[in-house]
C-alpha cells in the first residue's frame, strides 16, 4: 500500500474509534478531490456543498466499514461521493443550467491521494479506452462524467434507446476483458 493511502487507512481506523481530530485531518486531506468531482458532476456548487457534507457524515458513521477489498481509501471515498451525486442528479433531472468548466483550475501536480498504484491504474484504463470503439467509449464517458441515463444518451446521440443501451453494455464488457488481461 502506498505511503499516502497507508496514512489515510490509519486515520480511518482512528475515526472509527471516534477521534474527531483524525476526522478533521482526514477531511482536510481528502475533501478537495471529492468536492472537485461533485462540482464537475452536478455543475452546481451549492448542491456540491450539500453532497460533500452528506459524504463526510457517512464517512464518520461508517469509517470502520472500510477494508482493502474496497480498493484504496480514495476509491472508497470517491464512490461514496459519486453515488450521492448520482442520486442528486436523478432528483434534479438536469434542471440546472450548464456551468462551464472553463473557469476551474486544474492542477497537474500530484495531490495527497495520488500514488504509484493510481498512476498504473490510470495508464491501464487509458490503454483499454484507446482500443475501445469510439461509440462505446463516448457513451461510457458521457454517462460517467455527466451522469447521463440511457434515455438521455439516446436523445443526445440521436440513436434508439436500445442502441445506446447496447453500446454501454458492450463497451463495459470489452473494457472489462481488456482490464483483466
Amino acid at each position, binding site marked *: 500500500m502506498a505511503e*499516502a493511502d497507508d*496514512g489515510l487507512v490509519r486515520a480511518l481506523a482512528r475515526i472509527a474509534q471516534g477521534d474527531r481530530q483524525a476526522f478533521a485531518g482526514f477531511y482536510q486531506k481528502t475533501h478537495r478531490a471529492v468536492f472537485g468531482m461533485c462540482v*464537475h458532476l452536478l455543475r452546481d456548487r451549492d448542491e456540491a456543498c450539500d453532497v460533500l457534507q452528506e459524504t463526510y*457524515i457517512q464517512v464518520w458513521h461508517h469509517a470502520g466499514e472500510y477494508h482493502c*477489498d474496497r480498493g484504496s481509501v480514495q476509491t472508497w471515498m470517491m464512490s461514496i461521493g459519486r453515488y450521492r451525486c448520482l442520486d442528486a442528479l436523478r432528483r434534479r433531472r438536469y434542471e440546472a443550467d450548464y456551468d462551464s468548466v*472553463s473557469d476551474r483550475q486544474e492542477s497537474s501536480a500530484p495531490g495527497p491521494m*495520488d500514488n504509484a498504484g493510481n498512476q498504473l491504474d490510470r495508464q491501464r484504463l487509458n490503454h483499454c479506452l484507446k482500443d475501445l470503439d469510439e461509440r462505446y467509449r463516448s457513451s461510457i464517458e458521457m454517462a460517467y462524467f455527466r451522469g447521463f441515463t440511457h434515455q438521455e444518451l439516446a436523445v443526445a446521440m440521436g440513436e434508439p434507446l436500445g442502441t445506446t443501451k447496447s453500446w454501454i453494455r458492450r463497451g463495459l464488457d470489452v473494457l472489462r476483458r481488456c482490464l483483466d488481461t
Partner: protein
Amino acid sequence: MKPDNYERNHALAAEYVVGTLQGAARQRFERWMMVSARVRRQVWYWERRLQPFNGSLPEEAAPKAVWNSIEQRLFPGTAPVASRWWQTLTAWRWSTGIAVLAVFALLLWTPSPPVVTHYVGVVQSQQAEPLWLVNASVDHRLSVKAMPPVQPADGGRDYQLWLLPESGAPISLALLPTGGARLQIDLSDQQVRQLLQSRSLAISLEPAGGSPTGQPTGPVVYQTRLVQM
C-alpha cells in the same frame, strides 16, 4: 434478475457504478448487494477499475462553511476541534513528499508501461445537451464529433473552433461539423503544447467560410475545457 448469473451480475455491477442502472432496477440491485458478498465484490471491482476517471477531474477546495456544518451536525453544542498544525501541515507535506519520491523511484527503477494519454471535452448547451465531443491525443490529432441535434447555424453562418492559449490571441483550428458528422484536425507541435497547457477551447459563430480576420469576429457561443484521461 438471476442472482446466480455471474456474467449478468458483472454487467449490472458495471452499470451500477457508471450510473446507467436506474430506478427500480438500481434499487433491486442495491438490495441484492446487501445479501450477496459476491455481488458486492463485483461492484468494488468496477469502482476500483474506473477510479482513474475521478483522478482526471480537477480538485477544488470547498468553502469553510461545509466543514463547520459537518461539525455542527455531528457534534452539536461542542467546541470545534483545533487543528494540529504538525499533523495537518508538516506531517502531511513529509508524507506527500515521500509518496512523490516513491513515485519517481518507481518510474525510474521499474519498466514503464506505454503511457497513453488522451483528453476529453464535451461542449454542452445551456440545457446541458451535449453538442460536440472533443477527443485529443498526444499524437497531434484532435477529433470532433458533432451530436445529431447540432444543426447548421442560422443565416448560413459557421461554427468555428478556437484554441485559447494561456496567453495571446485565440488560434483558429477548424470550422466545426454539424448533424452527427465527424472531423479530424491535425495539430502542429506548437498547437499541441498550447493545448496541453491551457486545455481550453472556444466556439464562435462566424460568417460562412470562417472568420475573415483570423480572429473571432462573432459571438463566442460555447467554451469547454479538456480533462485528462
